[in-house]
């Protein structure tokens, strides 16, 4: 319902008043470089990847130094243990894991003798039945909207994350949902485009292929993405006061470690 309120605001801005955007210079603080870990374990036979990098000052270019030579290990609660090897700078992989729903995975990263740990439980998989396209109109602009349909299992909390790719290119919007108000029902999650987004490549046109990656994530990871999404619109002054999303990694590292299910489903725009 909160997002509805923003829709209203954007609607009013779009229709009733003259809003305008401009790029401004801002004075920002600097901070010591932070360790960033992004770890994903999935239930398909693919290379499981842990990325380790560092943050840079806001004013720097978007080039994030890779962290090389870390010791990376993942264990599960069934007594298995996998060491990850660094394939490209800062990217650590293992081909041997196949994540299983219900298992808890624990990440252990050692960088310069600092140890970072995190654990995540892979939820049971809920599979999408279909994805559909509908038209949505804001003011005078009509866009295509991708919706995912599935049946939510009753009696257990479920958390969903989607990644939308258009012609193989990932869009930047974050899509996270839970079943708090929809437990056990035939559900539909709409992947709203960003009303402020003017990038034509994010606009679905005839012939485009929209691919949705559906993930079942655990509660901590939901909170991580949900916090990030809450902050992603309205920005300072307009929306929620931004802060660092609650990471499930110890010792002050940024990022997350997520064991989640994977399903990809696509549709071609007629």
């Amino acid at each position, binding site marked *: *319902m*909160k997002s*509805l*309120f923003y*829709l*209203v605001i954007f*609607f*009013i801005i779009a*229709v009733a*008043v*003259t*809003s*305008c*955007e*401009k790029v*401004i*210079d*801002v004075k*920002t*603080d*600097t*901070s010591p470089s*932070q360790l*960033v870990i*992004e770890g994903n374990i999935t239930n398909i036979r693919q290379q499981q990847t842990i990325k380790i990098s560092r*943050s*840079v000052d*806001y004013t*720097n*270019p*978007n080039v*994030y130094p890779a962290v090389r030579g870390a010791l990376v290990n993942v264990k599960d609660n069934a007594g298995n243990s996998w060491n990850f090897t660094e394939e490209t700078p800062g990217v650590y992989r293992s081909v041997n894991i196949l994540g299983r729903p219900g298992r808890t995975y624990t990440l252990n990263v050692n960088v310069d003798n600092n140890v970072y740990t995190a654990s995540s439980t892979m939820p049971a998989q809920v599979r999408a039945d279909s994805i559909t396209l509908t038209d949505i*109109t*804001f*003011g*005078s602009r*009509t866009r295509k909207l991708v919706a995912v349909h599935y049946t939510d299992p009753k009696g257990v909390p479920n958390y969903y994350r989607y*990644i939308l790719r258009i012609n193989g290119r990932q869009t930047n919007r974050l899509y996270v949902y839970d079943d*708090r*108000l929809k437990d*056990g*029902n*035939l*559900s*539909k999650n*709409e992947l709203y485009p960003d009303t402020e987004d003017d*990038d034509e490549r994010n606009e679905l046109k005839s012939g485009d292929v929209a691919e949705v990656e559906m993930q079942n994530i655990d509660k901590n990871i939901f*909170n991580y993405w949900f916090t*990030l999404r809450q902050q992603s619109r*309205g*920005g*300072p*002054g*307009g*929306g929620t*006061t931004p*802060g660092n999303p*609650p990471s499930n990694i110890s010792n002050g590292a*940024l*990022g997350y470690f997520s064991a989640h299910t994977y399903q990809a489903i696509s549709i071609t725009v007629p």
Partner: protein
Amino acid sequence: MQYKSTIYLLLPLLFFCCFNAAAQKKFTISGTVRDAATGETLIGASVKIDGPNGKAGTATNGYGFYSLTVAEGTYTVNVSYVSYQLVTKSIQLSKNTSLNLDMKAGNELTAVVVSARDRKDQNVRSPQMGVEQLDMKLLDNLPVLFGEKDVLKTIQLLPGVKSGGEGNTGFFVRGGASDQNLILLDEATVYNSSHLLGFFSTFNADAIKTADLYKGGMPSQYGGRLSSVLDVKMNDGNSKNFSMQGGLGLISSRLKLEGPLIKDKSSFMISARRTYIDLILKAAPDSNIKGNTLNFYDLNAKVNYKFDDKNTIYLSGYFGQDNIGIKDLFTNDWGNTTATLRYNHIFNSRLFSNTSLIYNKYSYSVELLDEVNNFRATSLIRDFNFKQDFQYFSNKHTLRFGAQATHHRIAPSDLAPGSSSSFNPLSIENRYGLESSAYISDEYNVSNRLNLLYGLRASWFSLLGPGTFSTYTANGDIATSQTYERGKFVQNYFNLEPRFSASYTINERNSIKASYNRNTQNIHILSNSGSSSPTDQYVMSSNNIRPEIADQVAFGFFKNIKDNAYEFSAETYYKWMQNQIEYKDAARLLANADVESQLLFGSGRAYGLELYAKKRTGKLTGWISYTLSRTERKFAGLNNGSYFPARQDRTHDLAVVGIYKLNKRWTLSGNYIYNTGNAVTYPAGKYEIGGVTSFFYTQRNASRMPYTGRLDLSATLEGKDTGKRFRSSWSFGLYNALNRKNPYSIDFRDVPNDPTRTEAVQTALFGIIPSVTWNFKF
């Protein structure tokens, strides 16, 4: 009991003054002051009597009543009121005398007066500090967004009051949050005072007689909010003649009817307003725009009946509704309803009583219209309120005492899905609360130089069953749950709120004042965005939420020069706030039965200096107000547990207001506002997550948005005075005349065509906006 000593100090004083007054052989003159043309009672008119055997002075109360007690003898009675002609009468006082006084409106040319309907030197003399009285006539001339004159926007031009944002009617007083303002319309609480997401307020200026804002030193008859009281009173209705007034504007039109029902016994007033925006939408060629709704309307109505000089009843009400809808997607409706029944009874020439029964309700509904994701969610907060207030006028004392009781019901959320909806039906338990209080205060003229206003308010809050009440672990999981039956007390809080103000007059032109007050608050708004939203959640103090408490001390220096033509004041304050509320990361506030598990509790402090210079008479009138202030919050778990600036912490806040009466028909006005940008959190670093740039934040609200500066202009043309009753005027306005792009929000993102860099993008809401309004009256 730390308060005991306060009680012991107060009680003897109060008894002493009553007996003291009764022991002397004196007579009382009392009555009601009214406008001669309309019969409206005049609030705050100055009544002075002077004679060889003594002199005394007072101001009329909220119902136009005054009472003065002096020794037997001959006296001259002087009644003055801003923009009215002075009334002078001679009387022989040899028994208790009733004297009603009618005042004629002054010549408009000579009496363009900026503010204060009060006694001219009240600024200096009254012990009350931190109060701003808004002259409703002022609103006719000031420039406003879309030409919609608005009480809540005008008070934002006063020192110590900060705007809720561009074009927004929300406001912050002395570092408080926007839900810490008690907004009363004929004594009824208005929970959501905004229309159309805050661009307009619920107060239709046509229907309003007076608006007083208390920023500090609250008199003890007010309670329930930490920061301020905005006491708005509706017009009673012309008791002499039938009249009609209205206006046509770009956004809305207004119409007011008033007149006598029974001459000099009963009159009515009804005032309505409605926007046209949706009619414009309907005219749009695009069928998609046509199907949208965007409107609000409101209705104020009041009737009164005077049984005799001693007994009067008033019935007043407000009804307002907003409707927003996007075709096939959703609708959002919200509105306030209030009703107030009051009975004034004058027991004797010294004891005035008012009894009020009040009902108020705020509700909203949100409807999602999708064929799968559909539901209708509703929520409301409803109060029944009883107030009994007495005022006792003696020679040197005005005593005020009474009691109040309010029953609250909050229905947090009811979710009703359609038949094929993906949503489950959900009904979150209603919450019930009883808020009661008793108060006493005394305004005591100790000497010609020293005036005191002191009192005590005792407030009780009880959270009542039925329902299941939980406590929570730090993780937000339920720790314990207990079920209570209807009417059982779940939690009780008792607070004593001492109030004290004093003024010391150095000489006729200069005075110093000091005040201390404690306020508590038991109704809290949960909103995790910067601006107010129609779907804000209300919660009561509970087993998890303790009453918010604020203590404020203030000192002031007041100076009037050139026969009170110029007023200066400097006030400084320091405020401590306890049990303030914030939200955890990823807080789910809506439709959440365990919403109290999502909260953090902390403290706050605010301090500042307010400077105010006002020119009250002449062709050019206006004021300059400047506030230097700081407001900070502290929560365990946020910003490493150290103080951080609240979002509305704006160091400098300046407003310059000028009104120039060019000639008989033209009035020009302008205001300029400048304020430091909001305290916001900018990223200190950045990193990559999932191929997308994410930002790293260090200190909370340590950065500043760019400043806001805006010049608004308006011109009012009065129609020719043809000697007939029909009068009309045109108002032309330019909002943001310099077309400055003031910051509304700032977003950080990758440069669209160069993903190797990031940029900060500022969004501005309003550029230059012209407006025109035509007003009429007959």
